[in-house]
């Protein structure tokens, strides 16, 4: 029997095409020893949840630069809970005004990582906050 690496889904909901950040983070987390499922651009909330369910991930990382975060991110958290994935850690990154962060936290987004966040900081946060799945 083996320990499994932490599995992270990196997805970009919304309609902006700026996926550099998501790819850099995916690559950085790979180097930190995570297994990163990358689904790419223009994901609907349903696509994100379906992928999270099938891949049995520990973390869903959402990158969004379109300004639709207050609409899409709470919707994704709600759908995850509906699918029985309420214990999956949800984090966000991209262009998200600081004023919007409390509302996102309230909706169930565990952390928001803005531009300039060091990859190691994200990795440490995920390791510290991912739920224990061995039960």
């Amino acid at each position, binding site marked *: 029997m083996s320990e499994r690496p932490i599995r992270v889904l990196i997805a970009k909901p919304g309609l902006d095409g700026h996926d550099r950040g998501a790819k850099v983070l995916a690559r950085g987390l790979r180097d930190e020893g995570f297994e990163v499922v990358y689904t*790419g651009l223009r994901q609907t909330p349903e696509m994100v949840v379906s992928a999270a369910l*099938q891949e049995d991930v520990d973390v869903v990382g959402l990158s969004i630069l379109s300004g639709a975060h207050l609409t899409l991110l709470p919707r994704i958290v709600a759908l995850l809970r509906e699918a029985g994935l309420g214990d999956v850690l949800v984090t966000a990154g991209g262009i998200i005004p600081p004023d919007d962060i409390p509302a996102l936290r309230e909706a169930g987004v565990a952390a928001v990582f803005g531009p300039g966040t060091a990859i190691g900081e994200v990795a440490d946060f995920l390791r510290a906050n991912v739920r224990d799945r061995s039960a």
Partner: protein
Amino acid sequence: MTEAAAAHGVRLAEEARAGSRRALARLLTEVERRSPAGEAALRLLYPLSGEAHLVGVTGAPGAGKSTLVAALIRAARATGRPVAVLAIDPSSPITGGAILGDRVRMQEHAGDTDVFIRSMAARGHLGGLATASVDAAAALAACGFPLVLIETVGTGQSEVEIAAVADTTLVVQSPEMGDEVQAIKAGLLEVADLVAVTKGDRPGADLAAAQLRAMLTVGAQHDRAAGDRPRPRRPEVVVVSGATGLGVADLLAALDRRSAAQRTEAGMAASRRARAAAQVDGIVAERIRERMADPARRAIREATIDAVATHALDPYDAADRLLREILP
């Protein structure tokens, strides 16, 4: 603990059989970890997994495997069939991390519960597969998926392991493969049951297919390669385009013909036997490793290794001693 784990595995297997995709996903995690729960689940599921068609999809990185798999999902769903995909990508030998990026091309079926896609990291396993791929495929087969596509790591010329575990090996070849000499080199093309030439909407695909057909016919007299796995006398070559859908229905039909033949042809029984042998051998090796790693045997193992390191004992004698130790 182990009994509770086994009960957990059995429960997951029953829920997955009853249609819970979440249970199936968790079950695959247990299978992948080679946990007691996963083992208990597989004991239940293996006998129920014999009817599905396991298709290995292999080829060089960038040849178009994921795009073709997405097109095959579309074609299978058009006929109403459930389809499962295991998409394997390499793990870093340095950090153990991985980017599993095959889903990027397969995301259109979200919400369709009859499509189940699971990415797997190879986790140190060489040969294009992950250690648990075969078990994961069996679990999917037992949970309502008559067609399971196993997309391997992008391979070089000689990663032919998939041929030992799949019912049908589909080799994906891009038109820019090089000249005919590439087609007569030993390796991947030798294990092909079917060859798909991708990017069929671009110039060059038909020429590449013609070259492959010609060269594969030349070599077709060898019907025994890769162990006891009999090869078709001449693999069918189909030109496909994931972008336009060209040839995909033909390819699915060719796969279905193989699937039907499975029930009759003696050659197919041999391929299933080869898969069973690979599975059993793999589990035996794993059990030996587990026993070897048992902390209770640590002292004797260390002492034996020290003896070899100082040339007090030869490595063959050492191995025999350890085997006697772990196999009462």
